[in-house]
């Protein structure tokens, strides 16, 4: 056997093993997701959230919303947050050194004045320039913090320092929340008597083309543009299948930075958000889990499948590429920081299953796919074109399509946000087109993220200029 043949064999059987494992993962994710979703829906049918809304025993919650150059939409977004159904609530807006007039707009709109406030810096952050409260008692729940720019993680750490309550919910200020979102997110912290719930995540859905009035979602529409539409499918797949399955196993490693609730005490004990990574949301959850595992305390990370939070998705390849580049870097950084857990039985399921899954199937998948495709092209170029290869490629893509269609089916069977049959058929069409139009771009963006990290190029979050969707009776069709 020549060395070329040997390498080809290793490559071939390596890919075979990887493919089989990935398929097994997909099947398991599907099965666990069905089980967890069914349990949740059954449980939820007994729940009257009004009990929590009117109870003085409900836990108090701080909502943390970092804002950077959000002047276009900040007033409406804050109004939307203030109108959430929850009694024991404080809303903390953290102006992360915006260069625009966000702070001035907030001061004018909400009649704010600067108060004397001792910031208990339990987490190290960039300096706080001032804390503001409203003279108008209607806005008594509102606290606005002005700080020196330090990024999202730093802004959230300031929020954690200033928050007065045991639990906090972090949200992206441009997100639109359902009115009962906090009631639903608070419940997991109350219903578990044997394990400490350290964090709870919620589903994020795509708001492009949806009808938003006065900062509230009034009508759900399927995104009209291709990129947001394909991300709609992607989010359904990620939230309804993957995260539900990992919740079943109590192995969830990621709660979206756009919408999640946390036990403040544990967050502080863990050292808060890591400003050195762009994947601070995942890194925090992993660190919190690690903290609990190392202390051998029973705990759980919960997840709510109800569509509670709606956000704008990138509609241009440029912004999308930047986002996916950042996600890739965030994943690598988190895995690198916590490499100690890799196949480490001391961390239980976290070390033996969750971490390896993320390493092999989230971080390595785009790399293997990229180099696999290159190898394939070289193989094709080195010999005569074989038309049966085309059929086989179609088979590869079909498995991805199958998984997407299963996700659409789960959506139809559960929350069915897109009522019209033609919308579902459009999603099916997107599932067919995604592997050839969208997926290669996502893989390429991840590869670029890997290269950027190797070159120590930290693109950070990048600035976003939002069109916004908070204006009256406006239908979102344009994006960032």
């Amino acid at each position, binding site marked *: 056997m020549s060395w070329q043949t040997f390498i080809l064999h290793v490559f071939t059987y390596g890919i075979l093993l990887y493919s089989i494992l990935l398929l097994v993962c997909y099947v398991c994710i599907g099965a666990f997701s069905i089980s967890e979703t069914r349990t949740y829906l059954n449980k939820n049918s007994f729940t009257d959230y009004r009990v929590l809304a009117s109870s003085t*025993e409900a836990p108090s919650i701080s909502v943390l919303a970092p804002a950077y150059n959000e002047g276009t939409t900040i007033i409406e977004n804050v109004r939307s947050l203030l109108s959430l159904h929850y009694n024991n609530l404080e809303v903390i807006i953290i102006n992360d050194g915006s260069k625009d007039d966000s702070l001035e707009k907030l001061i004018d709109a909400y009649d704010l004045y600067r108060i004397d406030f001792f910031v208990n810096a339990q987490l190290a952050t960039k300096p706080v320039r001032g804390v503001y409260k409203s003279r108008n008692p209607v806005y008594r729940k509102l606290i606005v913090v002005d700080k020196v720019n330090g990024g999202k993680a730093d802004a959230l750490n300031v929020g954690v320092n200033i928050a007065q309550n045991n639990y906090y919910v972090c949200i992206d200020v441009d997100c639109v929340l359902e009115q009962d979102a906090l009631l639903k997110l608070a419940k997991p912290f109350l219903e578990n008597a044997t394990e400490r719930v350290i964090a709870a995540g919620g589903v994020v859905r795509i708001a492009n083309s949806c009808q938003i009035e006065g900062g509230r979602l009034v009508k759900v529409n399927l995104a009209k543009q291709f990129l947001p539409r394909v991300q709609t499918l992607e989010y359904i797949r990620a939230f309804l299948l993957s995260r539900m399955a990992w919740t079943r196993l109590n192995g969830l490693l990621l709660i979206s930075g756009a919408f999640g609730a946390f036990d403040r005490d544990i967050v502080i004990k863990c050292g808060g958000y890591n400003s050195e990574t762009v994947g601070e949301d995942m890194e925090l959850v992993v660190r919190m889990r690690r903290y609990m595992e190392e202390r051998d305390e029973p705990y759980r990370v919960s997840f709510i499948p109800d569509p509670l939070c709606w956000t704008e998705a990138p509609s241009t390849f440029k912004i999308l590429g930047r986002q996916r580049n950042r996600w890739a870097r965030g994943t690598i950084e988190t895995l690198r920081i916590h490499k100690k857990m890799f196949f480490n039985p001391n961390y239980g399921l976290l070390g033996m299953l969750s971490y390896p899954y993320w390493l092999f199937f989230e971080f390595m998948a785009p790399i293997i796919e990229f180099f696999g495709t290159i190898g394939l092209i070289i193989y094709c170029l080195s010999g005569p074109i074989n038309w049966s290869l085309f059929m086989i490629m179609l088979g*590869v893509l079909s*498995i991805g399509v199958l998984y997407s269609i299963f996700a659409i089916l789960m959506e139809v069977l559960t929350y069915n946000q897109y009522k019209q049959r033609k919308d579902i058929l459009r999603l099916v069409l997107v599932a067919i087109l995604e592997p050839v139009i969208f997926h290669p771009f996502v893989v390429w963006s991840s590869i670029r993220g890997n290269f950027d990290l190797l070159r120590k190029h930290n693109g950070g979050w990048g600035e976003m200029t939002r069109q916004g969707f908070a204006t009256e009776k406006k239908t979102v069709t344009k994006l960032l």
Partner: protein
Amino acid sequence: MFLAKLLILNEFLPVAYFSRVHYQVIVMLSIAGLIISLLVYMLFYMYFKSKHEKKHDKWRLISDLLIHRAVFYDAEEEDIDETEAQAAIAATARAKKLMHNKHSRKFVTGEILSAKKNMTGTASDNLKQLYQQLGLDKYALKSLKSRLWHIKAKAIQELTVMEMSEYVNQLYAFTNDQVELVRMEAQTAIVQFNGFEGLRFLDIITYPISDWQQIKLLQQLAHVPPVNISIDGWLRSENNSVVVFALKLARNYHRFELHDDILLCLDHADQNVRLEVINYLCEIYTDDTTDELISRFLKEDFKNQLAMIKAMQNIGSEKDILFLLSLLDNESHEMKLTAARALAKIGKSGLASLQGHALAKSYPLNEMVLQIKGELAA
């Protein structure tokens, strides 16, 4: 996803024993078959769902009629006896026939239940009669024997909403069920039927009561006239969640006479119990309460220490000033701020002591004092 990619190189694989084309066709057909199956299932599901919605409109019409007749029926006005009244409310043969179908029965039950939740008085009683006339209580009882927990729990919830108090003994057996949702619904039912007396299940339960269930039960009890039930037995329960719940009851219903018994729970082994005791003492206290808290302060963990000082913001007096001043040297800023706030809330003497403290002019106490003064002025 890479399985098929690999097949491109299939001369190196064991599958090369198969005919290449034959193998590819099998793989492709299997995947295509699965996709088509899912799509067909999805389309059929959507079709039958919309068809069901049309059926729902029909069932809604029938149930609305039944509910309307029951709600607006007044036996006294009609001047007829109870038997006649029942007959008048009685469901039509068509409606009874509808109950044989599982789906229509579920639908009509749901409609009656949601109407019942919004009714009181005669209308509510009439709906209860309608429910029984349709034999829905018998179906619910049958569901209690189901092996599926959610069906069992749903049946308990249904009997509770419909106020079927005659089945209370059957429901009581579920109050310590191993499935959380089942026992939660059963506990809710017993409290719904028997009010405070229904809390007797606290004597027997071995599973913990979650915070959510405690909130639910307290909310339910808020709607019934308070009764001075005996709580002290639950304060000694081996189930810590029962002790916590008993303490919440004592706090919410201002059970002053239990103060001394509850004070003993400050030495309870469970941290949550001790925290709930502090919450109770924050509202129900004597002149000596703060002394008791101070005497146990050093033995407590940080969370409970903080709760003690927060309680002293409400119940502290001049005799506690020295103790609170000593906390201004504490290494935790949170503790310092809480103690400073407690001092300020004691009154002028407390505030003067705070401002006169040696560290009051330096960071961080100077900023804390400014914040507290701002809070007092607001």
